[in-house]
């Protein structure tokens, strides 16, 4: 489509430090795309390169086929929503929203119409004359979005704008942002370290680590079929059990772990003899003897370290071996949850289809996993 945003082999170096290593990704017009990663993974650098505040050291950024290189942020058809919103405190709400139009020389009457339309869009009709400090956190958020949308950008860039809000409001704003994006059809590029936000809102998510994209996919793909140990461990909760691959055939692999031989899906085609990590989600692990545990399942036995009751679910933590993090089993509070006491040994099971074999952290590049 006309306004697809393309990043081709984009590199950014700050002195000796490479913040972004050759990132290539295409975001079609109207997509809600998120860059998800821990702080320092290069996601903010990418955002600032797209908005034009910094230039890439190498590579091309194109919007609708047009190279954006050399076009300043004030000339780009992108608008940025800052982490702290950066609303102008000395201007009224209406002046904030109309600012982009005013500096473009749009006349007063037309500006007023756009501002009114924007206020309606963000459900703050009649708030035009208010001062910024009279607004609540969520209202400020909406004004910042309106100010950015008023200039009709082709791409709206959002730099963790929800991080300052409290939990309830954050969840509400997620839905609102998503709805706003659908209504306006503008490409939203969202930067966050909060996987919940990224998964809940995005059409597609790029998980980043150390300046590289680890995986691009829909929320379901990212969550259910992680392609690297980093993605598996960073996105959502995951149990990791390390070991050595002993067999691999028909898309499955077997791995010898301190808990014995376990089987799992092997999408990366790991070969016998290689070090691997088996990942299985806590909600896919069952107490043995419960529904769903059958003969073909993996089973392992370990000591119960603790139980954490969280209302709708309860987590049981079992001693792991070779990994400091315990094995977590998430049980739904459906009335049939068995009592488990600390210190006892329990047998748990999971299907090989729910587990996945991946190379350990740093096998592909560099060292270190998610913090």
């Amino acid at each position: 489509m006309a306004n697809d945003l393309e990043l081709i082999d984009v590199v950014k170096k700050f002195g000796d430090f490479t913040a972004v290593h050759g990132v290539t990704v295409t975001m079609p017009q109207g997509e809600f795309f998120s860059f998800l990663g821990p702080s320092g993974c290069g996601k903010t650098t990418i955002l600032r390169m797209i908005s034009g505040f910094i230039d890439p050291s190498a590579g091309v950024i194109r919007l609708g086929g047009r190279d954006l290189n050399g076009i300043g942020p004030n000339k780009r058809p992108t608008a940025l929503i800052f982490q702290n919103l950066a609303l102008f405190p000395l201007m009224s709400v209406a002046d904030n929203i109309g600012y982009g139009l005013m500096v473009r020389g749009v006349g007063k009457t037309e500006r007023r119409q756009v501002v009114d339309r924007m206020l309606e869009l963000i459900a703050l009709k009649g708030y035009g004359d208010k001062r910024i400090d009279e607004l609540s956190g969520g209202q400020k958020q909406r004004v910042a979005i309106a100010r950015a949308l008023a200039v009709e950008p082709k791409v709206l860039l959002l730099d963790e704008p929800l991080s300052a809000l409290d939990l309830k409001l954050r969840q509400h704003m997620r839905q609102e942002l998503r709805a706003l994006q659908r209504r306006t059809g503008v490409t939203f590029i969202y930067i966050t370290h909060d996987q919940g936000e990224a998964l809940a809102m995005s059409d597609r998510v790029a998980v980043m680590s150390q300046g590289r994209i680890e995986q691009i996919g829909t929320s379901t793909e990212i969550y259910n079929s992680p392609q690297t140990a980093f993605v598996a461990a960073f996105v959502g909760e995951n149990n990791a059990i390390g070991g050595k691959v002993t067999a691999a055939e028909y898309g499955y692999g077997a791995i010898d772990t301190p808990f014995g031989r376990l089987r799992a899906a092997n999408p990366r085609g790991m070969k016998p003899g290689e070090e691997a990590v088996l990942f299985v989600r806590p909600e896919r692990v069952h107490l043995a003897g419960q529904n769903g545990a059958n003969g073909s399942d993996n089973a392992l036995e370990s000591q119960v370290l603790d139980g954490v009751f969280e209302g709708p679910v309860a987590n049981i933590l079992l001693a792991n071996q070779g990994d400091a993090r315990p094995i977590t089993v998430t049980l739904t509070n459906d009335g049939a949850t068995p009592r488990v006491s600390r210190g006892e040994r329990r047998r748990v099971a999971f299907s090989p289809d729910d587990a996945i074999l991946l190379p350990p952290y740093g096998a592909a590049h560099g060292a270190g996993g998610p913090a």
Partner: protein
Amino acid sequence: MKEALQRFGAAGVGAILFGVAFWALMLIAGPMLLMVDMAFHPYLPNPADVGGPKDVYTVANFAKVFTDELNWKVFSKTMYSSILVTIIALLIGYPLSFILVRSGRSGWVGILMIGLLIPFWVNEILRTFAWQLLLARYGFINTMLMNLGLTDDPIAFTNTDFGVQVGLVYAYILFMIFPLYSTMESLDPNQVDAARDLGAPFWRIHWDIVIPHSKPGIASGCIVTFMLAAGSYIVPELLGGTRAIWFTKLIYLQFDAINWNLGAAYAFSLVVMCLLFILLMMAIFRVTLKDIAR
């Protein structure tokens, strides 16, 4: 107040209040009021007349500032020059402060800051003498201009109003830069980036975002620079010599000639002008005393 009473006791608080009151009333307000009183009395060469029938209240001393042609000329020139010096200091100080703030505290900014500061550890008189050397008839600047072929004869910088104005800008520019720097530093850099991202060209960012935010700093920088320039004695004395006379020199001459009454009236006129300038600045920038003191 309650806390202070608990900490220092009634006697302690009393002593502190007395000290402050003594300092404010006896050492500052008192002499000033004496000067004002003096300004409204005629000069009586014979001490016997003081307090006598000839010692009446009059505005004759003040009238002299405005009616005497030389006085008025020097007075208005001092005002005009001080405004000019203030404007030039603002034109230099504003971009300099902005660059310093925007560049962060890294490397060369620190060096530039120290470069600005070090000369001000040197006595003002010495610095002014240094400018005398630079601006002298066959001084550094004239020699350079002649070597470059830009002028055949040395330009008269010293003993002119221009020389004094240059010296005053140099002498007081830090008093412009510091308040500017500190208000600009409190501006969230994202505000500037946000304006730019919304399409604002360079000058609009300053007009809409940076200047409105820096108003208290601009106002207090202008006020301090103006007051120092208008009240400067040593810079015009050294760079202006006998030709470019400042109003402070006239005040000094009256006191020197024992006509304290006229000197007081002159000095008081200068104070009033400075106060009017403060009020004008506050009106222009729409700031309160509280904003400036911040």
